[in-house]
């Protein structure tokens, strides 16, 4: 079994699901207004992605191609439901804030995308690495975006007041358009760094 770390790194930086593949933007827009909720969402995505990649890679040889999509969806839905119950048991506050976006991870295109494009064609260890890499990439992206949005839009980080009491919140940052603005700037910065790297 050949172990390939390239995918792990790729998921975090070059093919980051948010900044490069631009998948999974819907939950990102919805929950990245608060750092705490974003971390909850990120951890849930890492768990579901790694779990479903692992399972799908294990059963890939038994699943005929014409039923693979329903099988993948059932596997993903199982992991999402486990994450849903666990989060409700561990942190009801985050569970309530994530609301419908937690069950909606089922239809998050990152997860079905990785299952179809990677886990169904590669061995178990590489699939786990791929799931971890893409999941961590998603979490880093949502974390950066939520820090910027919560700080500018509410003057807080993780609920702690950072800006002075006289700070007037930059309201649009907390609303969905703010997420688009932040993503746009971050993608531009990432592209800039990559272009500069190539020239040298």
């Amino acid at each position, binding site marked *: 079994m050949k172990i390939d770390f390239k995918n792990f790194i790729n998921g975090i930086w070059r093919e980051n699901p948010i900044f490069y593949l631009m998948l999974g933007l819907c939950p990102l827009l919805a929950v990245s207004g608060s750092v705490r909720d974003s971390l909850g969402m990120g951890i849930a995505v890492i768990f579901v992605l790694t779990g479903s990649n692992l399972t799908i890679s294990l059963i890939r040889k038994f*699943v*005929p191609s014409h039923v693979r999509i329903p099988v993948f969806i059932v596997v993903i*839905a199982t992991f999402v439901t486990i994450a849903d119950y666990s989060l409700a*048991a561990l942190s009801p506050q985050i569970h309530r804030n994530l609301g419908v976006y937690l069950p909606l991870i089922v239809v998050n295109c990152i997860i079905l995308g990785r299952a179809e494009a990677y886990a169904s064609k590669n061995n178990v260890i590489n699939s786990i690495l791929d799931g971890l890499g893409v999941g961590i990439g998603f979490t880093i992206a949502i974390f950066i975006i939520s820090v910027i949005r919560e700080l500018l839009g509410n003057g807080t980080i993780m609920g702690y007041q950072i800006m002075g009491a006289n700070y007037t919140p930059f309201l649009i940052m907390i609303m969905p358009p703010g997420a688009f603005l932040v993503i746009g700037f971050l993608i531009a910065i990432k592209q800039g760094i990559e272009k500069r790297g190539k020239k040298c």
Partner: protein
Amino acid sequence: MKKKELIGGVLILTIVTALSGYLLAQVYKITKPAIEKQKKIEEEKINREIFPEGEEFAEKEENGVKYFSVLNSEGEEIGKIFTTLSLGYGGYIKIKVGVNKNGEIKGIKILQHNETPGLGAKITEDKFLSQFKGKTVEELYLKKDKSEGKIDAITGATISSRAVTDGVRKLLEKINKKR
């Protein structure tokens, strides 16, 4: 598609679904007590914020309305806590209302809402909610709506403020009618 392929596909899908169902049933069994415990803790925490002097909160039901009966350390009922819904700007607002023995508001808390961040969402702040303390049915109007009203609306969020005020008042009217 060949018949054999079809049967194979159906079989695999059935097995996967059955396994997943079994697994979820187990996870549900394990997490259920913890989830219920968390819910109770949270419910109690909010009840205690509304009625800090309450010793015990007993769940009761009367005419199909569920409420918490608040008992003090001597076991006397000193008030009730109700939950009500009111239509705001972005959907329903879920409000917990504490009422003391005289039918005055003891305190209210917003459990759930979907109001605009930075504007309507300010209904969850103490600055707005503390106005409700000690108010009676007649006073539960926005100042700008009725001269008897004693509630100040949040700037730029009249609809949300009105929704909370009206929701609480309608609840009180309903309770008083039943007395």
